């Protein structure tokens, strides 16, 4: 029997979670439909004033993405917790952090990436310029993985609690405020003709920081929750 390298372990976990998500498609669609619905309701509710819509577009899209990602976070570890797979993961002789990172990546691919891909269409509802849409997508590409990773810490801490969903939002949403500020700030900068590099660089820095620390922190949180 061959020993698995850390990288192939990561691939194994990502593939497993993607296969599971594809066989349980309703969960994936819930997040996406929620995002599309929330964003589409705003132009209907606020009215067809182009200036106002253009101005609020980045905020609405970002907040909707934030809430949509909260919606799917509860499921990140709970299914594995309930059927005992999480116990086996904690006993993995390789790094638990790598397993957790794999779960974060697949969570993003299932619940973050579809939102990013949907954004251009939704941006048109708000009469956003192509340039603004491009920056918004770039921001979401950098930002949604952070939401998945920071959210994973909260999901691990609230594992097995009753009413964990509310607690999860209370824990995680405040931590996501910087992402929201830089994400919307970048779009506002580009529409007023300023450079977006500072906003996006800060977002990139947050992403690297999250990538370095959140898997380990989540792994520790999982060990605490399993006791």
């Amino acid at each position: 029997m061959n020993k698995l390298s850390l990288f192939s372990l990561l691939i194994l976990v990502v593939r497993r979670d993607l296969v599971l998500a594809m066989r349980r498609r309703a969960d994936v669609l819930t997040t996406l439909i929620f995002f599309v619905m929330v964003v589409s309701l705003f132009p209907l509710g606020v009215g067809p004033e182009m200036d106002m819509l253009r101005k609020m577009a980045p905020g609405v899209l970002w907040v909707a993405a934030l809430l949509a990602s909260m919606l799917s976070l509860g499921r990140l570890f709970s299914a594995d917790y309930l059927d005992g797979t999480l116990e086996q993961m904690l006993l993995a002789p390789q790094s638990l952090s790598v397993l957790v990172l794999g779960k974060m990546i697949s969570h993003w691919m299932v619940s973050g990436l579809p939102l990013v891909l949907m954004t251009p269409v939704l941006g048109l509802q708000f009469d956003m310029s192509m340039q603004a849409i491009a920056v918004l997508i770039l921001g979401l590409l950098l930002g949604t993985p952070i939401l998945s990773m920071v959210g994973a810490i909260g999901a691990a801490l609230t594992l097995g609690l009753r009413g964990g969903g509310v607690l999860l939002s209370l824990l995680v949403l405040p931590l996501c405020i910087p992402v929201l500020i830089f994400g919307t700030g970048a779009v506002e900068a580009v529409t007023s003709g300023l450079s977006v590099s500072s906003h996006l660089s800060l977002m990139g820095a947050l992403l690297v920081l999250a990538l370095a620390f959140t898997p380990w922190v989540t792994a520790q949180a999982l060990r605490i929750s399993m006791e």
Partner: protein
Amino acid sequence: MLEVSNLACSRGDHRLFSELSFALHPGQIMQIQGANGSGKTSLLRTLCGFIIPDDGKISWCGENVRELDEAYFAQMMYLGHLNAIKDELSALENLRISAGLSGTELNEKDAIAALRRMGLRGRERLPTKVLSQGQRRRVALARLLVSDAKLWILDEPLAALDVGAVALIQELIAEHLARLGMVIFTTHQPLHVAGMEMRCLSLS
């Protein structure tokens, strides 16, 4: 070799056991006995490191398992009440993934051979949600066949199994002990391993 000294464990305010000491040497098997709620599962989960004991030490080959951490996990295998199998995946996928999680790459041929030995011929590629409770347990137990762990920690391995499967598990345990493996388990059903002295530990 697994050595436990002066172990104490409580759940909430209730003290389950204290000053528990025993040693398990290669080729030995031990059954944990006790009434419901006497702490059998808690003891096994403590041995796995899920529960931090109030007091005492668990050592593997002379070193504390807290320090060994992942090196200890590579040598042991835990099978709990929960089967750790996914309804959406087939028996084959489940077995290969759980082998992967425990660090070994399992090819399809070996996985199918293991499942067939567990009496799941023809059901290897069915989603496990269509299998019966006993068959799911068999899928979970197939992990015993493909693991090279020295120490097996089995919590109620015989639950939901029929007579044939119980005989098979006894055979597997006998083979494992002959390879100088170690087994520690709980059960409420009689389990006999031919030619082996069964040590018992009673929790009260």
